């Protein structure tokens, strides 16, 4: 990175944070601080919802996913538009009608205090544990490739996000997210254009897409019922629906983004904006990755994209193995490139006999090149069992640093930081709000009427969660398996929380005690299954939700009909 890159990076990041803090410095109303300005329009809400979901890992990892496995991952988002329609039609009108600050407050109104505390507690436990990961995960990648100090990246990003989130609350979060999304959009478009310009002469988008397709990278929709396939239309529709419904409908970091606004219409249109654009956006990022794969078929590529890790071993005492692998990689890549060019010639000649043979030779050469990459990964793992093995996370950032012109490099690094700040800000905002409204006000009910005090307390809790997140990221030293464990933890809780909300919305006959104990039983069952079975953790969303609903009905039947006094009890 040179001076131009630094100007772009610091100008956008510090500028947006400073602007957000300055514009929102006088907010004194609790409603505005926690729910956002009453004048917020659907465009801001829509971008804010999008920015909250898109973390830095989205922009680092998803192009890598496209590079490695193709665009099939897009099917994971197929349930999202359906979930957003349900949120718009059922969840959002109810939140606004009851004028709640948090989704868990709704549980208190619908059921009772203990159910509200359970919902809020599960959210705080899950998000609190994950608090450091959203800062640490991108920071470790950026520090590795940029050679910057990890602790400095964590402290600087943490400080920036704490300052504007604490100052302006929900208004600052939405305002900065809108600008950060503009940086992200322009950065990703720049990267895509540069990638197309860097493709070999005569290949162009169409040729590159044909190569990617022939190498199996553009299979976007898979209608097979084979359970061993990870991403299919059906898993996307079913799993994606439950995940998205749980995330958008009950997770306070999302609910807080659309619950405010001038009217119900603004929130609904903001969500529909995401329902329309999310799949095309994710497809575009994955396609970028698939085209990067084609680009690296024609350009020199590192055998292992995490070069910092690779070079440490290649220059070490056992470096001979690594250097031999590098030589084999050069040969395999050259073979693969020749085979691709031969296939393109056969395809252009429209020779019906030559094309299948050339395609088979190309696939064979590609398999041999992939086998060398697998051996390289195994060699790194053998040399360092604690090494970060998801090498695809380094593909896009390597392309940015080695292929983009100066200025654009700064913009793309700003994309990574903008996405890290935007998702972190929403998370801190939600953690601070839930701690204030669902826990602190529960302990201090008399303080509910002192608005200024409530704002002060919300600011302190937001800052406290920010410090906890930075502390976690600095001192825990997350191993890769710990990051995954925290993500799994999310899936373990999400299903039961969604179950509680679905009971609240659709099973009017079930009361607070039934759903509370049913949720505890369902959560215990999910944890027991997690500890004893070996099934994909995404299934726990479905299992947790279904068992919570079934147990609630069963328990309510045992307890007998709800007393009329229970209905509509506020908490």
């Amino acid at each position, binding site marked *: 990175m040179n001076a131009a890159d630094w100007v772009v990076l610091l100008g956008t990041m510090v500028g947006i944070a400073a602007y957000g803090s300055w514009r929102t410095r006088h907010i004194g*109303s*609790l*409603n505005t601080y926690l729910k956002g300005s*009453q004048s917020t329009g659907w465009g801001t809400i829509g971008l804010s919802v999008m920015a909250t979901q898109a973390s830095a890992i989205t922009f680092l990892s998803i192009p890598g996913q496209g590079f490695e496995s193709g*665009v099939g991952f*897009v099917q994971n988002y*197929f349930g999202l*538009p*359906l979930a*957003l*329609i349900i949120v*718009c*039609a059922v969840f959002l*009108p109810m939140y*606004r*009608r*009851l*004028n709640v*600050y948090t989704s868990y407050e709704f549980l208190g109104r619908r059921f009772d205090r203990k159910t509200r505390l359970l919902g809020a507690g599960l959210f705080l436990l899950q998000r609190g544990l994950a608090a450091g990961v959203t800062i640490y995960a991108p920071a470790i990648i950026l520090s590795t490739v940029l050679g910057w100090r990890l602790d400095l990246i964590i402290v600087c990003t943490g400080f920036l996000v704490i300052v504007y989130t604490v100052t302006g609350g929900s208004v600052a979060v939405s305002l900065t997210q809108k600008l950060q999304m503009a940086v992200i959009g322009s950065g990703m478009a720049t990267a895509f254009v540069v990638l197309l310009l860097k493709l070999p002469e005569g290949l162009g988008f169409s040729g590159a*897409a*044909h190569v*990617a*397709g*022939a190498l199996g990278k*553009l*299979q*976007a*929709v898979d209608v097979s019922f084979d359970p061993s396939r990870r991403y299919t*239309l059906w898993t996307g529709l079913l799993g994606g629906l439950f995940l998205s419904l749980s995330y958008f409908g009950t997770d306070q970091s999302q609910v807080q983004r659309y619950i405010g606004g001038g*009217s*119900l*219409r603004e929130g*609904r*249109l903001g969500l*529909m904006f995401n*329902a*329309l654009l999310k*799949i*095309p956006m994710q*497809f575009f990022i994955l396609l970028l990755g698939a085209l990067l794969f084609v680009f690296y078929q024609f350009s020199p590529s590192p055998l292992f994209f995490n070069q910092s890790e690779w070079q440490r071993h290649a220059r070490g005492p056992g470096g001979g193995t690594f250097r031999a692998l590098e030589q084999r990689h050069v040969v395999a890549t050259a073979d693969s490139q020749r085979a691709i060019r031969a296939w393109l010639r056969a395809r252009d000649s429209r020779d019906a006999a030559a094309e299948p043979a050339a395609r088979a030779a190309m696939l064979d050469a590609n398999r041999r090149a992939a086998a060398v990459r697998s051996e390289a990964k195994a060699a790194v793992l053998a040399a360092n069992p604690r090494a970060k093995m998801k090498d695809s996370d380094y593909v896009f950032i390597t392309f940015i640093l080695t292929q983009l012109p100066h200025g654009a490099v700064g913009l793309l690094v700003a994309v990574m930081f903008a996405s890290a700040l935007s998702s972190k800000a929403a998370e801190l905002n939600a953690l601070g709000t839930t701690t204030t409204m669902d826990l602190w006000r529960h302990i201090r009910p008399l303080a509910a*009427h*002192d*608005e*200024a005090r409530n704002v002060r307390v919300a600011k302190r809790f937001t800052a406290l969660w920010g410090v906890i997140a930075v502390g976690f990221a600095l001192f825990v030293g997350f191993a890769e398996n710990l990051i995954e464990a925290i993500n799994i933890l999310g899936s373990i809780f999400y299903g039961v929380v969604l179950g509680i909300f679905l009971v609240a919305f659709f099973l009017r006959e079930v009361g607070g005690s039934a759903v509370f104990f049913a949720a505890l039983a369902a959560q215990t069952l999910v944890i027991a299954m997690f500890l004893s079975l070996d099934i994909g953790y995404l299934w726990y969303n479905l299992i947790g939700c279904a068992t919570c609903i079934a147990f609630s009905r069963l328990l309510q039947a045992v307890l007998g009909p709800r007393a009329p006094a229970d209905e509509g009890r506020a908490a």
Partner: protein
Amino acid sequence: MTGPPPPDQRSDAEAPGVPGVRTWRGVYLLVLGWFVLVVILLAAFSRFFS
């Protein structure tokens, strides 16, 4: 000290204000139609470049 603003009473009676669509049900159908179209286009894209 001021309390929170009154609850939103307008709910579904509020028009979506989307050109050509009068009701929220129409908006949801439009989004569903778009989703189906996107899936079809993705499938066609995969097939064309396979």
